[in-house]
């Protein structure tokens, strides 16, 4: 499917990843960081941008690894192992690179980077790229826009949570349960996008 490089194809992948099949709210990938770092708006923003960066990069590198290493050597069954190692190494490299060369960005993203290794959205996007048979450009677009969808969901959710603090709900719902239910309501709103089509 490497011929699907037309503008509409890219646009439909992007729109799908951001709105229709949002990674968090529809696919349930990346719930842990979504719940963990959405208490304040600025941390949510930091995490969101870090995820966009790593998801885009991971999609690109995993595509190359899959095409020129795994498929070439008939090692497709090692996919999961190879991808998680690529992602772990990538996160580590990005962290070291940022610390040395862009310290300002490092201090902004620093603490979120290690968390991303265990973010299922990153491994998920790499696996889905392979499953859907995306080409290189499509994979990168899917990775980046998937990250944009994550950023949007986490920022929306952080603002809801900031207001939740002043809401009056039963004491048993304190903390996680009320957060989950708020996230559910956002997911409900996102279902409205499910009819959206580019063509």
């Amino acid at each position: 499917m490497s011929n699907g490089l037309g503008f509409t194809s890219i646009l439909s992948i992007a729109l799908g990843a951001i709105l229709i099949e949002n990674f968090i709210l529809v696919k349930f990938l990346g719930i842990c960081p979504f719940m963990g770092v959405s208490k304040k708006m600025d941390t949510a923003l930091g995490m969101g941008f870090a995820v966009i960066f790593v998801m885009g990069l991971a999609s690109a590198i995993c595509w190359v690894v899959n095409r020129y290493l795994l498929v070439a050597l008939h090692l497709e069954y090692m996919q999961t192992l190879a991808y998680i190692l690529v992602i772990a190494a990538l996160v580590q490299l990005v962290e070291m690179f940022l610390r040395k060369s862009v310290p300002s960005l490092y201090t902004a993203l620093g603490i979120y980077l290690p968390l991303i290794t265990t973010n299922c959205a990153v491994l998920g996007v790499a696996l889905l790229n392979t499953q859907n048979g995306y080409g290189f450009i499509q994979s990168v677009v899917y990775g980046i826009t998937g990250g944009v969808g994550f950023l949007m969901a986490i920022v929306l959710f952080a603002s809801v949570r900031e207001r939740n603090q002043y809401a009056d709900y039963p004491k048993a719902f304190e903390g996680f349960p009320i957060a989950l239910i708020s996230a559910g309501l956002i997911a409900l709103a996102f279902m409205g996008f499910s009819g959206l089509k580019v063509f």
Partner: protein
Amino acid sequence: MSVKKLFTDGVIRQNPVLVQLLGMCSCMAITTSLFNGVGMGLSVMIILTCCNIVISILRKVIPPNIRIAVFVVVIAAFVTIVDLLLQAYIPALSKSLGVFIPLIVVNCIIIGRAESFASKNGVGASALDGIFQGLGYTLVLIVMCVIREFIGKGTFGGGLIDVGEAGVRFVTDGSGSGIRIFPAQYGALLMVLPFGGFLTLGTLIAIVQGITNRKHNKEIRAGKLSVIAALDAAHGEEGGSDE
């Protein structure tokens, strides 16, 4: 550490999903029919037990600086084994769980138990811990599946239990129709959609928190627990749930 303590910790007191709040992605994503829930639960249980055993054996050899990387490689190896076995023997399950089988690699329960239990305890205890934590996870999945499937589709045991001319029987190819409790048109489809996942898990955790709070209050009233200790405990729990 006694077997009984490990059992109650895994299933109730330190339940991986409801108390430790780990592994929620898969918990909400796949609990739409009992077939998926049981399949996922058992897969995680097997992987968790095997990983705990291997990491416990290797715990004195693994250099502490790179332990997380070693854990991830061990986990990924077992996940690959289970993934391939499912593709070969239960293809329906492999298809229906899709990307969530390879994603067990990043399931926080497994890496969490490796870090907090298997790397500090003996092989026997680690194996039991894996079985019981896996059991706790499976039970939560089953409860969520039963609730969501019942309200959403009006059936029980979809995919796993087949009611046909041959009577009620278990099937492993995911083709079971399930036991119909009320007609399908009255089902609230919302419960099998993502919203239902968030709502069900949120409510379950709220119930557990409600019971814990009530127990604390009772103990305070009975004078068993001083108010300060209770406040400390409540504080500790809050801190724990932040992660």
